[in-house]
C-alpha cells in the first residue's frame, strides 16, 4: 500500500518539478524578465544583478569592484558569475546564461532539500519506533516531508521571482541548504564548505554554526533525550542501543578543522582576486561593513531602511547595535530549548535572520518557507496557519501596489509602503513564534503519550 502511494507521490513530484522548471523558463523568455530584476522585493543592494554587472565592469576596467558604493557582494561571485552578465547569445534573451545558472541552483537546492527531508523523516520514524509510539501516532499517514519541502521551495512564487529576477539569492540559499544537507548526511567537508560559503555570501548565515554543531554532535532531529530515558525507565530495561547518541565532540572538531581549511581557502582566493584593489580589508569593509551599518536607505521589504532614514543621526549607532544584538539575543534561548531538533533550530534562525536582516529580499523568505516543509508532520497542530497564509498573499499583493503608488505615481507616500513592510515583519514574527510554540507542544504531546497522562485528550 505504502509503496503504491510512494510511487504515485514521486510520480506527481517529478511532474511538479518539471512544471516549475518550465514555468521559470517561460518567464525568462519574457522581454526584460518582466522588469523583475529592478524590483525592490527581489534585488537588494547585496543581491542585485545590475550591481553585480557594475562590479564586474569596474573590475574589467582595472578598478576595484568596491570603488563606488555599488557592489557589495563577494569577489568570488564576480569571477564566477561576472562573465555571464555580459555574455550574450544572439537571438536569445540578454541574460539567458545567468538565468539558467539560477534555475539550476534552484533545482539543486530543491533536490538537497528533498534528500535532507527524507533523512529527517527516517530519523523521526526511527525515534518514534524506539519510543514505541508508532501505533499511537498514525505513522502510515505521515507525509513525505522531503518531497513537500522541495515542492514548496520550487513552486513558491517568492523563489520563482527571485530566480527570474536575476538576484544572487538562489546561490546564497543553495549554500545554506548545502551546509544543512552536509550536516544531516554527515558529510563534514561538504557541511563546512556550505557554511563557509554561506557566511561569506551573507554574514547572517554565520549563526547556523550552532545547529550544525548540534546536528553533527547528536544527529538529526529527534524528541528530547529525556523522553527516551523516561520510556526505558517505564519498561525497566535500559537498552542503550535504542537511545539517541550522546553528544560527541569528534565530528564537531572535524567540522571545525574543515571550516578553518575552507575559510582559509576562500580568503586566499578573495585575496588573490583583490590583490591590486586594496585587498581583503576593502572587501570586509564594503561587504560586512555595509551590511552592519545599513548605509543604503533604498526601500526594501524590511523595516530598517525607513527607520534609519528617519532616526536622528546621534541615535543611529545605538539603534544599529540594538537591532543587530536582537538577532544575537535570541540565539542562546532557542539553542537551549530546541537543541534536540537542530534542523528546526536552523529553520528558526534562518527565519529570524531574514526578518531582521538589513537588506531582506523575498529570496530569504523563500528559503525558510521551503525549510518549513520539512516539519509538516510535527507542525500539523500549528495555530494561525490560514491567517499566516492569507497574510503572506495579502502582503505580497499590496506591497507592490503601495510601492507603485509612492515611487511611480507619487500619489501615495512612504508610510504606505512602510506599513506593508511592518505587516510583513509582524507576519514573520507570528510565524516564528507560533512555529516554535507548536514544536514545543509537539514534544509535550509525545511526552504525554509516553507517560500516559490524561492530557493527551486535550492536546
Amino acid at each position, binding site marked *: 500500500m505504502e509503496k503504491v502511494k510512494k510511487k504515485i507521490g514521486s510520480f506527481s513530484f517529478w511532474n511538479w518539478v518539471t512544471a516549475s522548471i518550465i514555468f521559470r523558463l517561460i518567464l525568462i523568455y519574457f522581454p526584460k524578465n518582466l522588469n523583475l530584476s529592478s524590483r525592490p522585493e527581489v534585488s537588494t543592494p547585496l543581491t542585485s544583478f*545590475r550591481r553585480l554587472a557594475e562590479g564586474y565592469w569596474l573590475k574589467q576596467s582595472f578598478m576595484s569592484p568596491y570603488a563606488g558604493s555599488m557592489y557589495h557582494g563577494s569577489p568570488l561571485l564576480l569571477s564566477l558569475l561576472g562573465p555571464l552578465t555580459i555574455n550574450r547569445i544572439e537571438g536569445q534573451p540578454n541574460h539567458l546564461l545567468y538565468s539558467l545558472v539560477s534555475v539550476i541552483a534552484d533545482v539543486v537546492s530543491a533536490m538537497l532539500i528533498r534528500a535532507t527531508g527524507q533523512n529527517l523523516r527516517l530519523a523521526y520514524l526511527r525515534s518514534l519506533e524506539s519510543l514505541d509510539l508508532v501505533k499511537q501516532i498514525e505513522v502510515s499517514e505521515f507525509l513525505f516531508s522531503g518531497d513537500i519541502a522541495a515542492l514548496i521551495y520550487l513552486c513558491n512564487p517568492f523563489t520563482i521571482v527571485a530566480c527570474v529576477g536575476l538576484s544572487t539569492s538562489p546561490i546564497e540559499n543553495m549554500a545554506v541548504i548545502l551546509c544543512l544537507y552536509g550536516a544531516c548526511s554527515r558529510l563534514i567537508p561538504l557541511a563546512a564548505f556550505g557554511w563557509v560559503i554561506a557566511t561569506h555570501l551573507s554574514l547572517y548565515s554565520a549563526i547556523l554554526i550552532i545547529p550544525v554543531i548540534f546536528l553533527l554532535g547528536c544527529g538529526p532531529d529527534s524528541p528530547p533525550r529525556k523522553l527516551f530515558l523516561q520510556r526505558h525507565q517505564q519498561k525497566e530495561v535500559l537498552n542503550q542501543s535504542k537511545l539517541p547518541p550522546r553528544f560527541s565532540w569528534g565530528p564537531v572538531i572535524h567540522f571545525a578543522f574543515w571550516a578553518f581549511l575552507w575559510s582559509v581557502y576562500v580568503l586566499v582566493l578573495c585575496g588573490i582576486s583583490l590583490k591590486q584593489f586594496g585587498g581583503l580589508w576593502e572587501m570586509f569593509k564594503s561587504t560586512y561593513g555595509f551590511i552592519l551599518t545599513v548605509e543604503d536607505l533604498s526601500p526594501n521589504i524590511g523595516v530598517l531602511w525607513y527607520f534609519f*532614514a*528617519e532616526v536622528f543621526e546621534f541615535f543611529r549607532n545605538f539603534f544599529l547595535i540594538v537591532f543587530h544584538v536582537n538577532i544575537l539575543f535570541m540565539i542562546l534561548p*532557542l539553542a537551549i530549548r530546541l537543541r534536540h531538533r537542530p534542523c528546526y533550530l536552523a529553520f528558526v534562525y534562518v527565519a529570524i535572520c531574514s526578518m531582521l536582516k538589513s537588506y531582506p529580499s523575498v529570496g530569504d523568505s523563500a528559503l525558510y518557507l521551503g525549510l518549513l516543509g520539512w516539519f509538516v508532520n510535527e507542525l500539523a497542530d500549528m495555530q494561525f496557519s490560514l491567517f499566516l497564509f492569507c497574510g503572506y498573499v495579502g502582503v505580497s499583493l499590496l506591497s507592490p501596489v503601495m510601492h507603485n503608488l509612492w515611487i*511611480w505615481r507619487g500619489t501615495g507616500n512612504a508610510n504606505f509602503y512602510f506599513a506593508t513592510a511592518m505587516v510583513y515583519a509582524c507576519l514573520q514574527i507570528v510565524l516564528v513564534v507560533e512555529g516554535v510554540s507548536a514544536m*514545543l507542544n509537539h514534544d509535550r504531546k509525545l511526552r504525554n503519550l509516553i507517560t500516559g497522562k490524561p492530557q493527551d485528550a486535550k492536546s
Partner: protein
Amino acid sequence: MVLLQRPHILLLLIDTHQFLQCWIAFGSANEEGQQQEEFSEELLVKPLPDHKLLAHFHFQSSAPPSTSNGCHHHLFPKAISQLVQKFRVKEMELSFTQGRWNYESWGGFDPISSSNAKPPGVELWAVFDVPQHHIDASWKNLTHTLSGLFCASINFLESTATYSTPEWSFPPASGNVRYGTLPCEAVCTENLTPWLKLLPCRDKAAIALLLDRPSLYRGFYHSQRLHLTSTESSSEGIDSGIILEQTLTVVLQPNSERAIEVHASEKHVQPSWSLSSIFGKQVSGRCVLAKSSSVYLLLDRGLVAELKFPNKENGKSAANGLTSENFWSNPSFELSVNPDRIFLEESSSHSKSLSILYMFQVEKYSESEPFDIGLMWKVPVAWLCQQTPLHASRFFMGSGNERGAIAISLKSTQFTEGFMSANSKDGSCELRVDVFQVVPWYVKVYFHSLRVFVDQQPRAVSDFIEKIHVSPSKDKMSPGVMEVVLKLPCRVNTAALTIEFDKGFLRIDEYPPDANQGFDIPSAIISFPNFHASMVFLEDDSLNRSPLLSKFQEKCPVMSYTEVLLVPLTTPDFSMPYNVITIKCTVFALYFGSLLNVLQRRVAEEERFLKAKAAKKTGRLPLLLSKLSAKLRGSGINQD
C-alpha cells in the same frame, strides 16, 4: 620706567627698519618700470543675432612677484594676493552665473563664449602648487575664504561629496585641479558688490560706472567671473607675478519697450542702442589709476559677411590707414561716435569672412563731455553666429522616482557641415569630443550601462569611445566623475550617450528645506580639443597690446556647457520620525517578548496551577502530598 620703555624703542627700531626695506623695495620696483602693478579696463559690445546685445566687461590687474615689492600693493587687491600666497593657488577661476548661455543663437565658437559662457550658479576650479596630500585641505580653506569674500555659499563645496578631481578632460590638465559647482546658487547684487570692491576705482569712474544693478540683473544672461593666474614659482622664464582677470558678461535686450512696438512692423530690423539707453548711464571721465580704458565694438564674422563692406578686399590698407570712412558710415548702420582705431581680423582657418573691431578710447572724454556710443541700424540684417562643431544638450529619460537615464546628445551644426566639406578629401576625418560629467552621489550611475548611439543607431561602445576614465561615486563621500573621449566621424548627424542610474534615498536631515523641488545635476562640459577659438587682430604695435585683445589671441579649446538637470528625489514623510521609531520598537518588543514567552513557558507549571485550582475544593493535605510526590518523581528522573 626706563626698563619698560626699552622694548618699545626696540620694536620701533625694527618697525622703521622694515618700513625702510619695504620702501626701498617699492622704490626699486618703480625704477624698473615694467615691474609695476597695472590695471586696465575694457568693455566689449557685440550685437547678437536675436536682437540682443552682449556686453563684456574686462578688468585686469596684475601684480609683480611679491619678492620685488615686499609687503604692500597700491593697485592690486590685497585680499586676493593674500589668498594666493596663503593657499599657494597657481590658477583659479570662480564664476557666478545666472541664466543660460544660448549656444544656438549667441554662438559658441569665439573666445568670448568659450571662456565666458558658464554654467548657472557658481563654478569654481583651482590648481594648487602644494604637495598632493595637502590639496584637499587647501581647497577647503580656499572655499571658506572665497565664501566670505564674495558673500556666497561657496563653503558648501568643502565637503568631498561636492567637488571632484578631473584627471585629464578639464582644460588645465594636471592632477592638482579641484573642480566644484553649485548649480542652484542664486546670484545677485550681494555677490557683485564685493567683486567690484576688488577694482581700484570700484564702480565710481569710467567703464565700471556703467554697472548699473537694475539694468544688469534685468538681462537674459549674467556671468561674473574671476580668474587669477600666479607664477610664484619662477620655474618658467617669465615671472609675471599674479594676474587677476575680472570679467562680467551680460546679454541684454536694448530698449525693450520700443522693440515690442516695432515688433510687428519691422521684425528684422535690429534694435538701435546706445550705452546710455541700455545701462542708463554714460561713461564720464576715466579711472586715473587705470593704464588704459577703452570700449570696443565687435562685429562678428557672420555679421560682417552679411553687411558686405564695399571695399572688403583692401581691408589691410584700411587697418593700416585707419581713415577709411567705409567702416563706420556703412549703408546698413551708423555709429554715433567715430572710432579711434579699427582692427581687422587676420585670416582665420574656420571661416571665410573676418570680424571687425572698432576701438574707442575713453581717456579722451571728460565729465563735461561724457562718452556714449550708439549704433543705429538702417536696414534689416539677419546673420548667424558661429556655432560649436556639435551642439550639446542633455536630458533625462524615464519616469518615476526609482531609476532613469541621463542622455547627452550631440547634434551637428552648420559649422560641422562646412568643416566636413572642407576636410572631405581625406576619408578618415575624425571629430574628437571630450565629455566631462560629474554626478552627485545620490544619482547612482551604472557605468556599465553606457551606450553610444550614432545617427540614432545603437553602436558598440568601443568603436567610438577612445578613452574613458571613471571614478564611481561613494555614498556621502565623493561624486561620480566620468571623462570620455569620443571619436566621431565628421559626417555624423547626431550622436548620443546614455547612461542609466538609480535614484538614491537620503536621510531626512540630508534633504534641503525645499526637498520636493529636486536636486540639481551639474552641467556636463563638452569640449572640442581639436578646435581653438581665437581671434587674432592685426595690430601695429604689439608692445602696447590691450589685455582683452591678447586674451582673444590665446588658443583656448572650444567648449560648451550643457543644461543643469533637475532630478526629483523621493522624499520620506518628514513628520514621522517619532512614529516610526515607536512603531518599529513596538514590533521589536513584540517579537522579543512573545518568543521569549513561548520559550520559557513550562507546561508542568500550568498543570500544577490547574491542580492547585482543583485542590482548593478538596483540601490542603492531598495537594501537598501530590506536590511532594511530583517533586520526588521529577528529581528521580533528573538523577537518571
